[in-house]
């Protein structure tokens, strides 16, 4: 009676090994055990044969191929990615070495906000700017907002305010607020907004009058042309007057919104 129970237990245990026997994935000892059982158990022996047949039959099913149009679409997508990422990959590797564990963080954060191309874009900006030193005679608020832009490129976006209620001073079609937070520019409190525009991220910083009109160059340009613009290490900074204070818009030059499509909010 006891041996019959043992046999039944073995019969059940071996059923989970039959596939391994069929596929020759058992070690020698296991294979012997299974073989000995199969000699005395027709149910399992038949199962092995059915498994072999199924394996052969399923293996003979032809694999569907992509249609030519699908193939060429895939070719395009990959060719694009491979070319772009070739150059970007080198920049990313350099950044990884520089920024160490920070990078993962940035990548995850920005991947979520704007996708891979955005993360890479920010990374490239960082690499280009990594050796930047404040030039003598620079405008402090400009240096500060450029530094702020670089900071958001390597750290999680601050998000002190619910994005839905954040109202950046400038808006234009296709602009989407990603985050808003308090910061300090030229030692004074200021409100910052990260805005996504197409595949670029722009930074808007609202500063007070004292900070905005502090520099004579800015005062003159605003009086003459209504705005002050400067290119700082690959980033464009545009200073626009608001009712109380001013707006500093920072981002890649090609990502700047058209003056015509942009509307400024008065505060």
């Amino acid at each position, binding site marked *: 009676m006891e041996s019959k129970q043992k046999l039944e237990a073995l019969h059940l245990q071996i059923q*989970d090994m039959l596939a391994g026997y069929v596929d020759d994935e058992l070690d020698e000892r296991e294979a012997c055990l299974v073989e000995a059982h199969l000699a005395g158990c027709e149910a399992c022996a038949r199962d092995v044969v059915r498994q072999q047949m*199924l394996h052969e039959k399923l293996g003979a099913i032809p694999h569907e191929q992509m249609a030519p149009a699908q193939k060429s*679409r*895939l070719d395009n997508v990959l060719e694009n990615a491979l070319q772009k990422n070739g150059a970007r990959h080198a920049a990313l590797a350099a950044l990884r070495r520089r920024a160490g564990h920070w990078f993962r963080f940035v990548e995850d954060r920005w991947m979520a906000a704007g996708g891979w191309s955005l993360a890479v874009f920010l990374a490239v900006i960082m690499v280009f700017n990594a050796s930047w030193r404040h030039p003598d005679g620079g405008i402090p608020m400009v240096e500060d907002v450029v530094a702020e832009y670089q900071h958001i490129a390597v750290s999680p976006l601050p998000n002190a305010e619910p994005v839905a209620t954040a109202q950046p001073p400038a808006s234009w079609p296709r602009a989407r607020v990603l985050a808003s937070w308090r910061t300090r520019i030229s030692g004074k409190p200021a409100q910052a907004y990260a805005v996504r525009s197409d595949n670029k991220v722009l930074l808007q910083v609202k500063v007070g009058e004292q900070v905005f009109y502090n520099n004579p160059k800015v005062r003159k340009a605003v009086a003459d042309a209504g705005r002050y613009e400067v290119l700082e290490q690959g980033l464009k900074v545009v200073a626009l007057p608001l009712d109380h204070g001013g707006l500093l818009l920072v981002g890649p030059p090609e990502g700047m919104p058209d003056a015509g499509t942009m509307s400024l909010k008065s505060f």
Partner: protein
Amino acid sequence: MKRQEKFQRLVRPWQDRLYAVALRRSGNSAVAEDRVQDALLRAWRDFDALADEISVYAWLLKILDHVSADEHRRDQRRQQLAPVISTGEPLLQKHPCAAPGPFEQTLQGQQHEQLLAAVESLPDDFAMVVMLRDIEGLSYRDIAQVLEIPKGTVMSRLSRGRRLLARLLLKQAEPNQMPDCENGALT
């Protein structure tokens, strides 16, 4: 340039096979195309993470599985019961087509589409191992890597999955439409 060339040489040859898998899983050629594009872009992004312990195709299938596994399917997968049937189960014992000869004829009578549909109708855990082993020809080691389960689990799921598949096909086969079955098994 080296990385690109390596990618082209190692990964691109598998794109059609990936598409075939994606098409079988989704049943929709546009969805399959999207998933293959996504999977290959991710593969390119993570290309440096491709390790020696896994074959390129298995690695790609793993990425494809991640691309395809939206929350919905993961939930379904969790909820699905995976029944275990014994080799001694009555249908497998008594069905006139269960014996080796008649079973082979039953299989011959099946269209490829019917077989694939039967595999897809298995509980997902079983469908995946049967698909990866029998249709895609992966080793147990690779399947274990793709599904992130132990090799022993691959073996037991495959044993149970194939048994379930055999029973399903036998259930579908009406003995009266397959006179050959009668001769084979009731002796």
